[in-house]
């Protein structure tokens, strides 16, 4: 059994290095970006968080913004799981695994982003229960540690089990995965709710201290996550022979459309509440949308960003609700706009205004440094590399070209001639 498993791993490793020039170029490109990001992180590790643009006033920045966005992407995998397992949708069943693999890479990126945000990463072990001192259940951050790692383990188990069964050409036994699939559905909602509560629970930050944040988080997650999946499926269709039916893409399109409209609605609810009442607490929203006057100076670094995001989301909404969205080319564009729009809106657009103005009414803007951006780029590159690698192994298993019996029997266009057995 163990030998068998080691053989599987060895073959999977071998498979990861098999591919055409385009595959090699892509993987080397990502590896180089990871290296650059790693180098930037080593610089930060030695010299401290002073290498970032964060200050005492804006004490969280690009790392936590990306983290928040990616938790949503991870949670959104559930939008494939529900149709596949609850409604037994056949099209979804064939591709649900790719969604779960995306969740794994997104969670890994989340963990990277929170780790690089730590002032003392060497003390990470203080978070381990019993050995360290884990402030559970009082601190919401301790909840987040549990739900994120739990979600990672759940998805690793589900994907690993299904792939390994398929590799052995066995039918998976339902007790070993169906219960976990249903736990993962609830868990997916919990990771994003808990992450929202991180912010919502802070009494000193009126911009975040609003009940609408958690529903907004889930909505925007169900925009960006399925949009990323649509684009990923389009790529998979082009670089492999794996069949992904159009119907599956259109089901995802419907999810993106609905979630996007609700997301825009919830955002407008917030804007109304802040502006109409005209209370002092609306300063953060004013800073975000219009810029803030403070002692004769206008601070408006985020204004062009949020308006770009809203414009992109609006264009995407128009494409998606009109018949244009049914054309795959336009759908790709709309998905790309959704991803960028949500990334800005719930990344920097949510984190930074929470700190501006400060609780004592000061205004200090935040601008990430180059080193900080390189670290972000490295973390993203690592996640995409991981996803590419997992797909490289999973797709041949799913299409039956990589199995225990046959070994690696590739006939896809990505395999080089000499390696077809």
């Amino acid at each position, binding site marked *: 059994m163990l030998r068998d498993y080691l053989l599987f791993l060895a073959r999977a490793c071998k498979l990861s290095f098999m591919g055409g020039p385009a595959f090699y170029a892509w993987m080397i490109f990502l590896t180089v970006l990871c*290296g650059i990001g790693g180098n930037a992180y080593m610089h930060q590790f030695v010299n401290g968080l002073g290498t970032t643009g964060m200050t005492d006033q804006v004490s969280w920045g690009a790392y936590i913004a990306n983290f928040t966005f990616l938790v949503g992407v991870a949670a959104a995998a559930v939008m494939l799981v529900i149709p596949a397992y609850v409604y037994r949708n056949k099209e979804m069943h064939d591709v649900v695994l790719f969604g779960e693999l995306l969740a794994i890479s997104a969670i890994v990126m989340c963990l990277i982003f929170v780790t690089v945000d730590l002032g003392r990463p060497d003390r990470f072990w203080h978070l381990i229960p019993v050995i360290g001192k884990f402030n559970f259940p009082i*601190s919401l*951050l301790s909840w987040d540690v549990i739900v994120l790692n739990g979600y990672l383990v759940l998805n690793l188990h589900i994907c690993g089990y299904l792939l390994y069964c398929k590799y052995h050409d066995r039918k998976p036994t339902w007790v070993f995965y169906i219960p976990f699939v249903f736990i993962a559905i609830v868990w997916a909602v919990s990771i994003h709710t808990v992450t929202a509560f991180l*912010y919502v629970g802070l009494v*000193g930050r009126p911009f975040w201290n609003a009940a609408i944040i958690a529903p907004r988080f889930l909505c925007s997650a169900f925009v960006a996550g399925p949009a990323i999946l649509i684009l990923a499926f389009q790529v998979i269709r082009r670089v492999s022979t794996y069949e992904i039916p159009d119907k599956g893409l259109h089901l995802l399109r419907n999810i993106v459309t609905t979630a996007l409209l609700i997301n825009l609605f919830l955002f407008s609810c917030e804007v109304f509440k802040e502006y109409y009442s005209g209370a002092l607490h609306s300063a953060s929203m004013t800073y975000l949308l219009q810029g803030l006057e403070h002692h004769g100076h206008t601070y408006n670094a985020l204004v062009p960003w949020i308006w770009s995001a809203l414009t992109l989301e609006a264009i995407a909404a128009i494409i998606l609700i009109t018949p244009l969205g049914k054309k795959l080319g336009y759908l790709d564009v709309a998905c790309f706009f959704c991803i960028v729009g949500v990334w800005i809106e719930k990344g920097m657009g949510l984190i930074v205004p929470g700190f501006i103005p400060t609780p*004592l*009414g*000061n205004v200090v803007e935040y601008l990430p440094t180059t080193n900080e951006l390189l670290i972000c780029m490295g973390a993203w590159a690592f996640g995409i590399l991981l996803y590419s690698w997992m797909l490289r192994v999973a797709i041949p298993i799913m299409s039956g070209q990589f199995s225990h019996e046959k070994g690696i029997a590739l006939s896809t266009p990505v395999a080089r001639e000499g390696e077809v057995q």
Partner: protein
Amino acid sequence: MADEERQTVKRRSFLKAGAGVAIAGAIGATLAPLRDMKAGALDGFFQQHYKRLSEEDIAGIITRLEGEIGRDYGAKVTIKDPKPKKGVRFAYALNLSRCNGSRRCVTACVKENNQSRDPAIQYIKVLEMPSGTFDLEKSDHNYDHEQVPQEGKFYLPVQCQQCENPPCTKVCPVEATWKEPDGVTVIDYNWCIGCRYCMAACPYEARRFNFTKPEIPKEDINPNMGYLSNRIRPAGVVEKCHFCLHRTREGKNPACLEVCPTGARVFGDLNDPESEIRYIVQNKRTYVLKEEAGTIPAFFYYFDV
């Protein structure tokens, strides 16, 4: 044929060797900044949480820390670990009618508590407020006049409010910050992981982060240090006002009070019926900042001309 094959093999092994060198080089380049790491930067890696340490453990750690400060800053210092006194409940009151915005308290605090001079860390912020408003967003944190007080302004110094119900300790994922029995919220600088969640949680902007290793000229170092208070902090951890507990637990006043030129500041034990702080809280019309936040500060403000 055989020759060609050999050449292919040769070329392949050459390429492999080349790839190997490239990978090794890339890993080396990635890790290059680690060369600048100071020796001993990770000392005390296995140190446990303050509350799990015995007296002997703490004594050992203090010896190590004194050595480190001597090595890094060239100063001979003593670190003590004064414990809270039973039945004592510290509180602070500030007479806004008297405060003239001189910021003497800010500089005295920096000196007393060995705050980093570069980048500058200060526990006390003095807000210059226009008369007739309590909207903090109208305050000026960076006022710079020849003379204070200015016409039409009043001054509002803010530091850690030592809340009865502190939002900052609640959010800490590793219990690196907690409330002591005498009411002071402290931080274990050797346990904090630097996630800065407490900074986001504090409604009074009282917490500061050491973005780099604190820089303090040797001659400016205050050698009388407390383990949970004014010892020089490591990089990457949060710090804040602790009511000068290395002084106040030994019966002295906080540095900010001692230096105040107008006598606007009053500090003492709320449980002592004879204390001035008790008199003020009982008899003056005091108020607290952001009462609606439910934090229940132990820091009272009042006007009294």
